[in-house]
């Protein structure tokens, strides 16, 4: 048996798993997106409808509202989440006692299962017994307990807050890794030249971590556009649909309304939108580097 054949044989089990778990569902959902599905007696009936699912989705105000909410999520996650992540990473990059413990603790939100995080936040936001109400009330910031998840304007921001708490550790780890690749000599030299901390940050740190910033923006855009489990556990898209993001809308379309084709079409439209965004990001970063 040649080395090439042996190589193919060795990767065959993984390839089969990838094809079954990844490639086949992607292709099948693409196929389904051109059909209308109906649960008939004893079976699922597929009726070919061409691009109808795509057109209906693009024309649907509900889709664009959900998309707008999700984009709002992404904006917060990128601006606030990454800024926080960078700030904490800068702190953790300094030498101080128990730095190792601090670095381990900041990973805590990242390692918890998503559903555990969501249920934890559900209790934090509880309108009668929640920690957040208790804390703000004791500190005198509020006179009465607030039903955080029952107010449409507040609910979405509470979910965003939980999402930022969940996603920031990833930004911290990535930025910490990037910061540690910056040669210390650059800071030493600039210090000798009399540069302030702000100048060191803007002239040395920020430019050198730009590639990581680009990677994080792309990853956070993709990850946050898919947000689902937090919304499902905290608000189930309510109250009044005010936290219905595209991930939850797709889930509801497929599993509540049993419109598999339409749900598949939505996922492909989302894929195209995300690809366009990533293309725009890469162009922006490339032009800056040029």
């Amino acid at each position: 048996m040649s080395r090439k054949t042996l190589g193919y044989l060795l990767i065959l089990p993984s390839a089969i798993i990838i094809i079954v778990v990844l490639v086949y569902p992607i292709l099948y959902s693409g196929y389904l997106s051109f059909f209308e599905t109906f649960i008939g007696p004893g079976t699922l009936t597929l009726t070919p409808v061409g691009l109808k699912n795509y057109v209906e989705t693009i024309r649907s105000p509900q889709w664009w509202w959900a998309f707008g909410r999700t984009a709002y999520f992404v904006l917060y996650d990128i601006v606030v989440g990454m800024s926080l992540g960078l700030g904490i990473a800068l702190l953790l990059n300094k030498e101080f006692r128990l730095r190792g413990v601090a670095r381990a603790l900041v990973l805590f939100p990242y390692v918890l299962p998503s559903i555990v995080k969501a249920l934890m936040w559900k209790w934090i936001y509880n309108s009668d017994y929640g920690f957040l109400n208790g804390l703000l009330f004791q500190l005198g910031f509020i006179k009465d307990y607030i039903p955080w998840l029952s107010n449409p304007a507040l609910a979405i921001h509470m979910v965003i807050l939980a999402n930022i708490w969940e996603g920031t550790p990833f930004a911290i780890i990535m930025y910490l890794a990037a910061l540690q690749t910056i040669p210390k000599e650059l800071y030493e030299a600039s210090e000798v030249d009399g540069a302030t901390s702000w100048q060191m940050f803007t002239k040395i740190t920020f430019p050198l971590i730009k590639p990581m910033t680009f990677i994080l923006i792309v990853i956070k855009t993709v990850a946050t556009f898919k947000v689902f489990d937090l919304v499902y556990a905290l608000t189930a898209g309510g109250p009044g649909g005010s936290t219905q993001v595209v991930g939850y809308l797709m889930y509801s379309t497929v599993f509540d309304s049993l419109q598999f084709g339409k749900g598949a079409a939505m996922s492909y439209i989302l894929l195209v939108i995300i690809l366009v965004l990533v293309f725009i990001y890469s162009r922006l970063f490339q032009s800056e580097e040029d």
Partner: protein
Amino acid sequence: MKKFLVSILVAIFSLAVLSFGFGQEVELNTISGPDVDFLLKRAQQFQDKTGVRVNITVVPYGRDQNIKLMSSFLAGGSQYDVYVIDCVEVPQYAEAGWALPIDEYVTPEMKKDLLPFAADGMIYKGHWYGLPWASEWKSFLYNAAMLEKAGYKDPPKTWTQFVNISKKLQNSGIVKYATAWSWAGKECLICDFVAVAASFGGQFFDEAQNPLFNKGASVKALQWMADSIYKEKITNPASIMWTETDVNKAMEAGDIAFGLRWGLPLVPLNDPSRSKTVGQWKIGLMPSVDGKKPYTVSGPMGWAISFGTKHKKEAMDFIFFMADEKGAKLAAIEQGVVPGWASLYKDPDLVKAVPQLDTMLEQGKFVVNRPRVPWYHDFSTMFAVEINSALAQQKTPQQALNDAYQKTLQIKKDYEARSKK
């Protein structure tokens, strides 16, 4: 030597694979909402009796099981063998062939003893699709101890009295919010809306299953529900995200003075292992706009068998273990599940264990049903979100109901068009 070792390994592997298929104990799979303690206990008793293990998947809200069930049905129906089916699900599941008819197991003696309302909930087009289990409606409860503290002996009969008593309770500092409801954008909200709308004299659907809810009294009912949160401020605002489980907990904790509850509500409320308000609650007739329409919503449920089960006999044994006369009596006494067997209501053990059974049965004369149509699942998903929007002040009640009306007509039309193909 190498070939010998490889042969031994292959032999052991083959034996392991083969033995996996033989001598395997029969296991049944079912699915349940979060209040699962009683089911766990009964499943263990069933296993001790028959040797058949029952595995239970738990979902955070009872009706969330529908999504998992439907996914399993589309994949062949063998993932869950038995499940509790709601009366509103029977038409869809029957039309889709997801629930096995159990006609041959329902004897004439059983039919004679079953409450007509319980039996009707499980019958569709002349066939039985479930054995009646929780043959229930929502009862109106009031904390008599709290009302007495505020100077009231009797529960409210009208919604005006309800509001006034609620405000007195709140102003006296007895409770922060007099009441809470299960108004999350799910089936629980539809149940409460149907009950309140009927108590206002509103109609949900006509006999031809055409929607009527965007007119007159039903709109007033939804307006009243919204006003109870924002204008009268007697309903806990968190209600618009609560399911029945949250309301039940608030009642058991003594956080509210009024609430609706399924089943035999005084059984869990008087259980010291879960309630801090033992002996405080009483059942009253549902308040209404004029005191003359104490209507509530019905919701009979039954145990059903999946069409894809590979253990039909064991599945039948289990559903009869849970819901026959003996099983239903135990469930009533221990868990407060309303039995569908008429003879049980004369059983001295049940009468002794269930306080105010007579008042509960009086309420049972004033029940309204939700429509039993094959497109109910699509309708329910849409309708719950629309009325939740009104309660969240995203839309006015009239706008929400008008939007729901248009969408209902479309859902019905789409279903009928597809059914003809």
